[in-house]
């Protein structure tokens, strides 16, 4: 866990020291539990249009980036009220920015930019500066419909993360989850990570569970009781079109697309007993993977598609197992704790997140795929369940009862930064983080 902090610190040190200035002072690790978070100022973008059309876009862009970087941890987004330089009365290039006015409020990094609105078209330019170096670190120009300002901001947040850590951030993506916020039963909702465009996806007015994304992030699989049986459905996000994939008698549960999208791992039932099978995209049986008397649920594919982690009580209490997606014997992965569930294979491939019940409480853990190096991510803050990895493999979204009703939180893979994502009424559970949008 400490290695990663060190890595981030080193990368940032290189970024800062690379410019070779005595101003850039790195005290200890910049990113990490013992360090101050990296202070960044995000100025509202300057409007280059005449007239009032889209007057709030510059502020919205800054708000979304601020929210993303707060979720990321590691950054301290400086309060806008403290900014001395006014966006519409100042420049957004290295030679026109008054960097003194940013360093005096403690900013080490600065986001500035400008935009133009013509009809429904938005052209937006965003830039990231090193305040001490007085230097442009990266810049991006985006063009699209005005409604896409959120995606532009999420993409630029990912670019900021790349500048500081070497790896693209996870924010140009979507989150699906189950919520009881609007109904007695549960429906599936979709939102961007900044929670700014929450949308209710299903309106089945029944029990609706376990959403998971297609690899292209355009559709979701889920289980619904709308026809008086837990059937597997797919819904296309753009058209809202819903299709039945599997309606076998009994459970059609926990459908998960293989990484190439050609197969679906699914729990089905035979007279009360659950087993995992592979079906094709139309629900036709391809291969039976488990065949025993025990409960077998919660499939999670390895990123190369060769293996599947799942939860089984074949040895007594529920434990995590790994098997080949081609069939054959399953190997037990978890040996500490008597109740381990919800495996989630990291997109980096090296670790599996899961939930362990200890002393009556549920908490998040990760373990290497060889079963070694168990790490606990949550502790002493309600029940913490339903892990799902971010597309970059650095974060895990999960549900927690730490504030009362279950809400979604994000933690980094070491458990150091934990930020609440969703708010409002009802219980939010079973989050699924999509891949990057393309």
């Amino acid at each position, binding site marked *: 866990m400490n290695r990663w902090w060190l890595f981030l610190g080193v990368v940032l040190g290189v970024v800062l020291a690379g410019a070779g200035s005595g101003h850039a002072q790195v005290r200890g690790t910049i990113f990490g539990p013992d360090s101050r978070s990296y202070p960044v100022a995000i100025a509202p973008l300057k409007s280059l249009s005449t007239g009032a059309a889209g007057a709030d876009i510059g502020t919205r862009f800054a708000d979304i980036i601020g929210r993303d970087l707060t979720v990321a941890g590691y950054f301290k987004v400086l309060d806008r009220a403290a900014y001395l330089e006014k966006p519409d009365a100042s420049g957004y290039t290295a030679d026109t920015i008054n960097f003194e006015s940013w360093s005096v409020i403690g900013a080490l990094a600065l986001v500035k930019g400008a935009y133009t609105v013509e009809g429904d078209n938005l052209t937006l330019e965003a830039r990231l500066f090193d305040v001490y170096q007085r230097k442009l670190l990266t810049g991006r120009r985006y063009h699209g419909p005005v409604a896409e300002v959120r995606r532009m901001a999420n993409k630029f947040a990912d670019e900021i993360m790349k500048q500081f850590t070497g790896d693209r951030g996870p924010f140009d993506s979507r989150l699906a989850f189950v919520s009881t916020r609007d109904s007695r039963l549960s429906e599936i909702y979709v939102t961007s990570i900044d929670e700014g465009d929450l949308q209710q996806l299903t309106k089945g007015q*029944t029990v609706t569970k*376990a959403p998971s994304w297609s690899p292209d992030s355009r559709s979701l699989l889920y289980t619904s009781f709308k026809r008086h049986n837990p059937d597997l459905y797919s819904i296309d996000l753009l058209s809202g079109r819903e299709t039945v994939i599997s309606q076998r008698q009994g459970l059609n549960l926990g459908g998960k697309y293989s990484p190439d999208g050609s197969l679906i791992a699914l729990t089905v039932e035979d007279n009360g007993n659950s087993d995992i099978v592979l079906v094709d995209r139309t629900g036709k049986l391809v291969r039976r993977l488990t065949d025993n008397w025990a409960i077998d649920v919660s499939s999670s594919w390895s990123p190369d598609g060769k293996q599947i982690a799942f939860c089984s009580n074949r040895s007594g209490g529920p434990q995590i197992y790994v098997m080949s997606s081609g069939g054959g014997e399953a190997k037990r992965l978890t040996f500490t704790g008597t109740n381990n569930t919800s495996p989630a294979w990291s997109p980096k491939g090296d670790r599996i997140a899961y939930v362990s019940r200890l002393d009556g409480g549920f908490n998040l853990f990760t373990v290497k795929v060889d079963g070694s190096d168990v790490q606990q991510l949550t502790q002493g803050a309600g029940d913490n369940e339903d892990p799902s990895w971010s597309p970059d493999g650095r974060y895990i979204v999960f549900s927690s009862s730490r504030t009362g009703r279950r809400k979604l939180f994000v933690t980094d893979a070491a458990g150091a930064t934990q930020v609440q994502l969703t708010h409002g009424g009802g219980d939010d559970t079973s989050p699924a983080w999509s891949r990057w949008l393309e």
Partner: protein
Amino acid sequence: MGKRLLGVVVVGLLFTFVGSGCSSSKKPGAGAGGGAGGVDETGLGSTGGSLDRTKKGLAPGDEGPLTDIHFGFDSYELDEPARTTLRDNGNWLKDHPKTKVEVEGHCDERGTVEFNLALGAKRAGAAKEYLVALGVAADRLTTISYGEELPLCHEHTEECWQKNRRAHFVVLGE
């Protein structure tokens, strides 16, 4: 189609109240006497399955003619009280040979949604299997698992969890 079925169930409820004037005697073996007239009244006694009841804003468990059985945490084993109840339920089913019953498996809130749906299926399956072993025709019994989704009791206590870990029997009619 679902709505039509609901309508039938609601009408059935009215018949039950009008016909017997009382619903307190609907316990195993104490049904309304096995269709002495043209209509088997007890077959219509159900007020619907737990999901339909929840949709209508009612508590999921109705006071049907058959009694719930309960389970230990993470278990689908039928203990002695459960087997005794199943024998009573089996006798009622033998006395009402035309009725069909849906066995619902339910769990407490602890554990994952998916594991609990699978556990509920095990519970419903175990109850069905026992009834079949007692001589009830398998084609009279269907099963469905609702996992932890339709709790009877909403507090986070062992007393409440115990009530929620159940198999519930819904009389579907003939």
